[in-house]
């Protein structure tokens, strides 16, 4: 398993996309952090570290998802899955290694983004006062944000294996996030449904929105979504022939 984890890491490291996504994560987060501090100081409100750190979370989660989809569905799109399975024919282990490495990279992206946003916020808010001391709540939210980045990346790995297409997988994520999660509560006449969606549960983990779900329950539910998608991916991956 160690060799497979090392292989999947090497695959990520040896593609330009990985570094471009990481650079994008830093640039976008820094811009968000900088702009947020500027806006708050212009409004005469002192910036607050915990609020700034959490701002790029959703963008980082999306980048974590895209990276994981590129790594998993990309194997089918470029037909590298054939050589992957020739070198490591035990498919369950290959999928587990892919998920683990994508999860670690997703967590790393969130950490990078958070650090970039805070650093840019510090630069923008230099001399303007505000609270820059990390509190227990800050660390709790940071841990939640990073964990969600990892879980979303694992889920996206499964989605990539199910769809075998980067375009379809990314389109499915976008449709679900911006259409599915938006219209489902209205269609089912159940406004409270939003708290149970992946985005709703992720928000409960880091204190976004007014979600009454306890963080532990939210973590469990989110992990359940990832486990369900990865379970389906594993069943299909074990049964279907690679393209």
């Amino acid at each position, binding site marked *: 398993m160690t*060799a*497979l984890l*090392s*292989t999947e890491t*090497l*695959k990520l490291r*040896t*593609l*330009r*996309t990985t570094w471009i996504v990481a650079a994008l994560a830093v640039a976008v987060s820094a811009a968000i952090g900088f702009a947020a501090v500027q806006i708050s100081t212009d409004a005469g409100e002192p910036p607050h570290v915990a609020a700034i750190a959490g701002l790029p979370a959703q963008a980082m989660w999306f980048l974590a998802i895209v990276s994981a989809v590129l790594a998993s569905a*990309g194997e089918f799109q*470029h*037909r*590298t899955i*054939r*050589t992957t*399975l*020739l*070198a*490591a*024919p*035990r498919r369950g282990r290959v999928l587990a290694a892919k998920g683990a490495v994508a999860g670690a990279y997703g967590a790393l992206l969130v950490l990078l983004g958070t650090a970039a946003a805070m650093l840019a916020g510090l630069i923008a808010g230099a001399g303007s006062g505000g609270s820059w001391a990390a509190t227990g709540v800050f660390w709790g939210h940071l841990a939640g944000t990073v964990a969600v980045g990892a879980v979303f990346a694992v889920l996206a790995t499964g989605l990539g294996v199910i769809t075998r297409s980067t375009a379809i997988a990314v389109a499915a994520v976008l449709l679900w996030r911006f259409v599915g999660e938006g219209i489902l509560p209205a269609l089912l006449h159940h406004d409270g449904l939003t708290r149970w969606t992946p985005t709703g549960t992720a928000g409960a983990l880091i204190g976004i929105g007014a979600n009454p779900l306890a963080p532990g329950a939210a973590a469990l539910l989110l992990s359940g979504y990832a486990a369900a998608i990865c379970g389906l991916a594993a069943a299909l991956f074990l049964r279907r*022939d*690679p393209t």
Partner: protein
Amino acid sequence: MPHIELAHLTKRYGAVTAVDDLSFSLEPGSITGFVGANGAGKSTTLRMLLGLTRPTSGTATIDGRPYGELPDPTRAVGALTDPDVFHPGRTGRNALRVLARPAGIDDRRVDELLELVDLTGAARRRVGGYSTGMRQRLGLAAALLGDPPTLILDEPANGLDPIGIAWLRRLLRGLADQGRTLLVSSHQLAELAQTVDDVILIDHGRLVARGSIADLMARHQSPSLEELFLDLVSNGTWS
């Protein structure tokens, strides 16, 4: 025990039977051509042997085990399935490193093989910029990574120019002389005739003929492997 053994191997895709009750075995140290027209079932057979396609029925084993159960497949079998199995954004060297890593093969072996297939100069270029012939040579390097005793090569001459084909002939002959078992599928029959000892000929997924080229040509009174192929496949004189 035969090195490679196919027993009643069958693959159906819906109503289409791609491989039909195919059985043969190869002894260690033989170099065998796997011949058939387009759609005859060669690639499907090789993919089943390599665990990439699941048979509908029958078995395909290497050293008595299905490919997926080999303890160290990269060191047991080298395979070339298609030149387009490398990520276009990865360099040639990194493409090989990625395949070497699961077997614990170090970067020195990767560099040795890049030298062998004359890609050292292009090792740090992205595969997307390689010609078909270069990708084919990279695929051959990938097959040789684990220095395996068995090689399964699907159309290894595809995309190679005449110089490349001559190089491939020498390479395959050299590998066979080292006592390796080679199963080579090809459309280039004249070329194959110069390289292999035996042929297995299939048509519509079924075994048509098998034996040494000289014996088959004598038996069917054919002046060349190409004539033999045309006789057996076009005229339907299955034996």
